[in-house]
């Protein structure tokens, strides 16, 4: 990167590309050329910067200036001002919402201050389509080190010592997993990277593959050496076209550089990687289901044991790790187990990437050290709740996780603590909810997802989740009973206890955790036929504020059930029995006279 005086890094993550960041790159290049500056400044499209809320993002090096919400038409200004005159484009700089001050350097932004980037170390810094940039940041040095200096046993030992646990959700010690596969004496073995991220509201793996594909390739090659496999496969969602494209480019470059293929770096180790495509089945995140899918079958899980380390792809020992797990590994080999051990909590080492989303100011992709509290994540990195609303819950672990409340905010985040408070780490979705979110509906939303994604193989998941959904639906329609609650609880417990795979065994978690933490909300739906957050349509009550109503009759005209009465120029009234809760009146009223009261009337 030294040839140029200046670098313009443009975020090429999916979020920013959705907001025309491709065109920004194009325009920047065009303007540089027009002004004859293409020898001085280089435009690089990088992976995700993480701060998706403020995208598209353009970062200028060496001064680390961070431009937010950039439009393609801003290219001219950035070059004319910043590149030519060295003056920052004030209007594009980030403004701290709390201090109302302009922060130009991303290092000083609250969003980045508490983050430690290991898995995302290169995302937003390098051009993911250029292997040289990866190598310039010590890429493939870990592979070289392992191949030249370490036996597979020693390399596995180091990984075990580092305490790295699987980032896909379960938190199984990665070194131990490798050791199991290593000890198996079969001739052919496989390394599989699970990139079938299907958690609704999570895009960690996608961002890593889009922003730094080589880190995953390098780690897979190391894994191949350690367990004795010559073949690797990345099982990736077909819905991730950009990640697939960048991965393909990266694989070709790695082959060209002799970092994949026969006798890597002159060693005896040979390793290559193929792509396999997922086809839209969340259950394929479960490793046995994933393996069946790779074999061309329905992605149904099978009973474990046997574990994939004994009998996996085509019946051969197979080691499956997820993208983020792999992305950590080169850094661990380069910087040592001690370094990794120094980050995190007693039993969870290193960092975790989260996709922070929902009712929060700074939506984005973050990487934080284990042990950070939810409060720090939500209020410091996340910048607090959107529109000044009140925090209600944070959901971690996706459809397998639970909803945590105010009382859990000071819990240090790690695998075990999250489990202890009734949620789980999961793959890294973190959704923040505010006072307008109905927690019964949230549970229903997750169950709807599970019902759709259940493979149908085992009865508790196939039928049980459907029944859970139906019970929740009944409750959100105001028809639930106390007995239904008992049913919900018993079924949830039994499904957890009996389902075949991880999907079913965790699917009732959103129900159990919301029942535990928001018992009063369930009670309001059941006993008062009332939804405190006003989200449940069937339970909404519309009410006309007589002091605001001017009697324009617009509402009574639009009402499909003739529930609104009142004389012209007189305050109108809604008959709650006739009202079908369609909300048409409220939409029509120009005087904000129709409201949904937050308590039952």
């Amino acid at each position, binding site marked *: 990167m030294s040839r140029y005086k200046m670098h313009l890094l443009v975020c090429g993550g999916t*979020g920013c590309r959705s907001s025309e960041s491709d065109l920004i790159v194009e325009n920047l290049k065009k303007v540089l050329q027009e002004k004859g500056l293409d020898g001085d400044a280089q435009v690089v499209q990088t992976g995700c910067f993480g701060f998706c809320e403020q*995208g598209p993002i353009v970062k200028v090096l060496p001064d680390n200036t961070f431009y937010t919400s950039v439009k393609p038409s801003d290219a001219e200004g950035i070059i004319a001002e910043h590149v030519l005159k060295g003056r920052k484009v004030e209007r594009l700089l980030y403004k701290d919402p709390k201090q109302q001050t302009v922060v130009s350097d991303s290092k000083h932004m609250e969003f980045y201050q508490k983050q430690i980037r290991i898995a995302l170390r290169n995302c937003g810094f390098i051009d993911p389509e250029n292997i040289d940039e990866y190598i310039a940041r010590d890429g493939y040095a870990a592979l070289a080190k392992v191949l030249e200096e370490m036996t597979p046993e020693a390399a596995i030992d180091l990984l075990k010592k580092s305490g790295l646990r699987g980032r896909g959700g379960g938190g199984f010690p990665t070194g131990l997993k490798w050791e199991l596969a290593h000890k198996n004496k079969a001739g052919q073995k496989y390394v599989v990277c699970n990139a079938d991220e299907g958690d609704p509201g999570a895009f960690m793996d*996608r961002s890593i593959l889009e922003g730094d594909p080589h880190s995953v390739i390098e780690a897979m090659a190391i894994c191949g050496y350690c367990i004795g496999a010559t073949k690797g496969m990345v099982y990736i969602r077909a819905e*991730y076209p950009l990640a697939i494209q960048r991965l393909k480019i990266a694989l070709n470059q790695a082959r060209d550089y002799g970092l994949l293929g026969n006798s890597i770096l002159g060693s005896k180790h040979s390793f290559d990687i193929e792509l*396999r495509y997922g086809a839209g089945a969340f259950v394929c995140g479960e490793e046995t289901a994933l393996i069946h899918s*790779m074999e061309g079958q329905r992605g149904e899980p099978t009973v474990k044991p046997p574990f994939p380390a004994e009998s996996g792809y085509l019946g051969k020992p197979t080691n499956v790790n997820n993208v983020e797990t792999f992305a950590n590994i080169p850094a661990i080999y380069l910087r040592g187990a001690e370094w990794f051990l120094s980050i995190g909590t007693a039993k969870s080492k290193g960092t975790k990437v989260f996709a922070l*989303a929902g009712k929060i100011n700074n939506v984005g992709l973050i990487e934080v050290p284990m042990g950070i509290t939810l409060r720090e994540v939500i209020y410091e990195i996340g910048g607090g709740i959107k529109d000044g609303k009140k925090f209600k819950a944070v959901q971690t672990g996706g459809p397998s996780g639970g909803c945590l409340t105010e009382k859990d905010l000071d819990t240090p985040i790690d695998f075990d603590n999250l489990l202890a408070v009734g949620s789980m780490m999961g793959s890294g979705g973190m*959704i923040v909810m505010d006072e307008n979110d109905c927690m019964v509906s949230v549970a229903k939303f997750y169950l709807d997802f599970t019902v759709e994604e259940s493979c149908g193989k085992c009865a508790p998941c196939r039928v049980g989740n459907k029944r859970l959904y139906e019970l929740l639906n009944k409750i959100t329609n105001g028809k639930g009973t106390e007995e239904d609650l008992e049913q919900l609880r018993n079924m949830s417990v039994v499904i957890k206890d009996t389902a075949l795979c991880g999907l079913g065994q965790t699917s009732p978690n959103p129900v159990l955790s919301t029942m535990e933490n928001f018992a009063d909300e369930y009670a309001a739906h059941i006993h008062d036929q009332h939804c405190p957050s006003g989200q449940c349509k069937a339970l909404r009550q519309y009410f006309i504020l007589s002091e605001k109503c001017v009697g324009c009759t617009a509402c009574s005209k639009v009402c499909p059930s003739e529930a609104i009465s009142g004389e012209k120029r007189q305050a109108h009234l809604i008959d709650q029995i006739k009202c079908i809760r369609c909300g048409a009146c409220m939409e029509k009223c120009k005087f904000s006279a129709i409201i949904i009261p937050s308590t039952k009337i």
Partner: protein
Amino acid sequence: MEELQSCQIDKIKEICRSFNNAEGELINVLHKTQETFGYLPESVQRLIAAELNISAAQVYGVVSFYTFFTMKPKGKFPISICLGTACYVRGAEDVVDEFKKALDIKVGEVTPDGKFSLDCLRCVGACGLAPVVLIGDKVHGRLEANQVKELLAQYE
């Protein structure tokens, strides 16, 4: 059952051959075929079954398992609404309802003129723009229910 034209037959056979007609490559073959034809009707699945020497039931069992595979052609402008959690909590459900109303079709259907098809998907990874709708490859972010009609008009 729709009859296949000979050029289509040749193309499918070529795809199967490129994967060595191996049973284990079924999903790859289906991906490639759907990429080429847009969807996987019965006749196509039967031909793939014959080429890979597996039963048509097995092929259909796989096609009907994965949501990515479709037996119906999509609309000229396929609309996919993200129903990931981030989009959900930012009102994606209302957006779905609005699209259903505006197009007068259900999720999974195509408008009678074949112009639009409506589907839901889970998280496209643009949570910063929630709620998000994809029309073709184009992502439309921060979409509110009342902007749906306006958006559709752009595709008229």
